[in-house]
C-alpha cells in the first residue's frame, strides 16, 4: 500500500490540468438535453479529442492514451475540478467502446471505434422496452434474419441521448422461439435508418433527456451484430458491468458536489448544527466512494475482477447524490423552490436541477431494489425466493 502518486501520475495530472485550464469553456454549455446544447457538447467532444483527452483509457492506436485506471481517476478529478462539461459521448466511450474492444471483430472495431473517439458518432442506449425495464430478459423487440440483414420491429424506451444521437445499440430478440435471456442479439444501428422513429420523452425538468425508439421493418446489416447470434445477453451483461461498475459515475462528480455544498453552507451563513453535520457527512461519503474506487482500481490493475460490488457502488452513489442535494435544498431555505430562471435561484439553479436529476439515480441502470437483491443473493449468498 502506497498512497502517494508516482512522478508519472503527477505529471499526468499537471498536463491535463494545464490543458483544461486553457480549453474549458468560460460559460457553461447548455444542457445536452436541448438541441442547441447537444451541438455544443458534440463540439466539446471534438475539442477533447483534438487534445487526445476524449477517451484516455483507450489504446494509443485508437487515439487514446492507454491510461491506467488510476490515471483515469486523476483525469476525472481534474475534469470535475475544472468544471468541464458533462460527457454527451459517455455511452460510446465507457459502454460501447470497451464492449467493442472486447467482442467486436477487427472490422467492427475499425468501423466504429474511431468515430466514437472523435465524437462524430454519439451513441444512444436501446435496452429497455415498455414491459422490459427491471426485467430486461422480457425483451420482445424482434429482429428477423432476412439474408444479410435483420428486420427489426418493436419499441424501445428510456433511451438516453436518443433524441439527438446518431446511432443506438441494444438487445433484440433474433430467435422468435426463445424466451427470457436466450435468443437475444446485440445490434448496432444508425438512427437515421428508414423505419426508425424517435419520440422524445419529456422528463421531470421539462427537458427531453431520453426517448422512445420505434422500429418498423428496420433493416440492420448482420455485420452490425456484436458477438454471436443469440449471445446478446452475455455481451450486454458485460456492458452493464462496465456501466454500474467503475465508470458510470466517477467519485470526482460527488466530491465536486460535496465541495460546492460546503461553499453553499458558508454562502448562506448557516449555523444549523444538524445541517453542518449533513455537509460533513456528504464530504465523508464522497471521500469514501473515492477511496473505494481507488482500492478497486488498484485491485483491477493487479488482475482482480469487479463483481457484485458494482451493485454496492450503484446503491451508494445514487443515494449519496440524493442526500447531497437534499442538504443543499435545506440550506437554500425559501429559495429552494426557485428554478434556474429565477434571479434569486442559488448557484444558477444547479441544486434544484441536480436534486431532480438525483431522483433518477436509484432507478436507472437497474433500480436500487434490484441492486439490493443482487447484493443479498450474489454477494451474501442469501436464498432466492
Amino acid at each position, binding site marked *: 500500500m502506497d498512497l502517494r502518486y508516482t512522478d508519472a501520475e503527477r505529471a499526468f495530472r499537471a498536463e491535463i490540468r494545464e490543458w483544461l485550464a486553457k480549453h474549458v469553456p468560460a460559460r457553461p454549455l447548455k444542457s445536452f438535453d436541448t438541441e442547441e446544447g447537444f451541438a455544443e457538447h458534440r463540439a466539446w467532444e471534438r475539442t477533447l479529442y483534438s487534445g487526445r483527452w476524449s477517451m484516455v483509457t483507450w489504446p494509443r492506436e485508437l487515439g487514446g492514451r492507454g491510461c491506467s485506471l488510476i490515471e483515469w481517476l486523476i483525469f476525472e478529478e481534474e475534469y470535475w475540478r475544472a468544471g468541464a462539461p458533462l460527457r454527451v459521448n459517455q455511452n460510446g466511450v465507457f459502454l460501447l467502446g470497451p464492449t467493442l474492444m472486447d467482442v467486436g471483430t477487427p472490422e467492427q472495431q475499425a468501423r466504429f471505434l474511431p468515430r466514437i473517439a472523435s465524437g462524430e458518432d454519439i451513441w444512444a442506449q436501446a435496452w*429497455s422496452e415498455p*414491459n422490459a*425495464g*427491471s*426485467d430486461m430478459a*422480457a425483451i420482445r423487440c424482434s429482429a428477423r434474419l432476412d439474408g444479410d440483414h435483420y428486420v427489426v420491429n418493436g419499441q424501445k*424506451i*428510456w433511451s438516453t441521448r436518443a433524441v439527438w444521437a446518431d446511432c443506438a445499440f441494444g438487445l433484440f430478440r433474433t430467435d422468435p422461439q426463445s424466451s427470457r435471456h436466450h435468443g437475444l442479439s446485440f445490434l448496432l444501428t444508425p438512427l437515421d435508418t428508414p423505419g426508425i422513429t424517435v419520440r422524445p*420523452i*419529456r*422528463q*421531470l425538468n*421539462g427537458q427531453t433527456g431520453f426517448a422512445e425508439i420505434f422500429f418498423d421493418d428496420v433493416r440492420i446489416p448482420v455485420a452490425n451484430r456484436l458477438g454471436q447470434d443469440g449471445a446478446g445477453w452475455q455481451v450486454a451483461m458485460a456492458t452493464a458491468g462496465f456501466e454500474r461498475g467503475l465508470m458510470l459515475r466517477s467519485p470526482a462528480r460527488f466530491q465536486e458536489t460535496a465541495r460546492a455544498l460546503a461553499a453553499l453552507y458558508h454562502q448562506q451563513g*448557516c449555523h*444549523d448544527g*444538524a*445541517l453542518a453535520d449533513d455537509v460533513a457527512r456528504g464530504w465523508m461519503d464522497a471521500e469514501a466512494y473515492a477511496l473505494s474506487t481507488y482500492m478497486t482500481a488498484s485491485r483491477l490493475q493487479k488482475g482482480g475482477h469487479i463483481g457484485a460490488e458494482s451493485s454496492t457502488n450503484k446503491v451508494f452513489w445514487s443515494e449519496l447524490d*440524493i442526500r447531497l442535494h437534499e442538504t443543499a*435544498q*435545506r440550506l*437554500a*431555505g*425559501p*429559495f*429552494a*423552490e*426557485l*428554478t434556474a*430562471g*429565477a*434571479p*434569486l*435561484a442559488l448557484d444558477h439553479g444547479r441544486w*434544484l436541477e441536480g*436534486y431532480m436529476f438525483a*431522483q*433518477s439515480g*436509484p*432507478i*436507472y441502470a437497474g*433500480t*436500487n*431494489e434490484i441492486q*439490493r437483491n443482487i447484493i443479498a443473493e450474489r454477494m451474501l449468498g442469501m436464498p432466492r425466493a
Partner: protein
Amino acid sequence: MDFTFAEDQVLLADAVRRFLVNEVSPELIRELWNRPGGRSQDLWKQLAEQGLTGLSVPTEHGGMGMGDVDWILLARECGYHGVPAPLLESSWVAAGLLAQLPPSELRGRTLEGIADGSLRVALGHAHSPLVADADQANLVLLERDGRLFAVPSSRIAMTAQASIDPSRRLFTVQWDCEPQYCIAEQAAGLMEQAFQRGALAASAQLLGLAQRMLDLAIDYSAQRKQFGKPIGINQALKHHLADVAVKLEFARPVVFRAAHAIANGAPECAVHVSHAKVAASEAALLAARNAMQVHGAMGYTWEMDLQIFMKMAWALDAAWGDRSLHLARVRAHVLAQDAALGPGCTFKEEQQ
C-alpha cells in the same frame, strides 16, 4: 376532551372533495401551467360560488365566519387536488389577518370582496422575500418598520421568481412606503399569526399531497407488471409505501392539533405549528421519494401525474418557513430550561 371533527366539518370536506374531483383535474393543472398568467377565472368563480372564498370572512361581510379547524380538512383537499389558485393564501391567511383589524371601511370592503370572489389579497412575510400571487392580487399585505400596509399591486414593482411548481407564481417586490396604505401601526403580532396560519395551511396541503402521491403509487404498483406480476407484490415496494403510511398517520393529528391551537390562541401555538410543518413536510417528501421509486423510470417523466404533486410538495417544503426555521422553534421549546415536557403536558395550555 374530544379530538374528532364535527359531523358538519366532515360533510363540508366531503362536498369540497366531490367538487374538486370534478373541477380540478391534473389536466387543468397542466393546462394552467402553460397558460400565461397561470390562473383560471372560471375556477375562481366556482370557488366563490361554493362559498369557499368567504369561509373565513365574518358573516356580517357576506362570509361564513368559519375558523381554522373548519379550514383544515378543506386545505388538505386543496393539497390533494393541487388546487392551482391562491385560495388558502387569500381567503384564509389574508382574510384571517384582515378580520383581526378594527372595523374600517377598507376592512369591510376588502373582506366583502374576498367573500364574493371579486378581490384577491396577497401577503408577504418576514421569513422570505418571495410573495406569492402578488401580480394578480388587488392588494398585497406587507410589513415595514413594524407597521402593516395594504398596498395596491399597481403600486408595486415586481420581479418574477419562477418556482419549480408553476402553480405558484412568486415575485420579489419593491414598493415605496406611502402612509395612506398603512392599515395597522403594530404589525408584529398580526404578521406572526398570519405566518403561522400560512404555515398551517401549507402543512394541511402537504398532508393532502402526501396522500395523493401515496394513492398514485399504490395504483401504479397494482397496474404495472414486471416478471409477469404487478410490481406491488414486491415486499421492498410494500415497505416503501407502508413507511409513507406510517409517517402520514403520525403527521395528521399534529396538523389538526396545530389548527386547534391557532383557533384558540394557545400560548405555545407557534411550537405546535412548527411541529406540524416539519411533520407534514417530511411526510410529503418521503411520499415523493418513495412514490418516485415505486414508479421507476415512469415517475421521472412529465407525462405521469406524480411529478405535479411532487413539485408542489417540494415547493411547500420551502415556503412559509423551511424546516430549519421550524425545527429551530421546536428545539428552542424543548431545550428551554423551564420547558414543560413529559406526560400530561400535551394539552397543558388548553387546560388553563
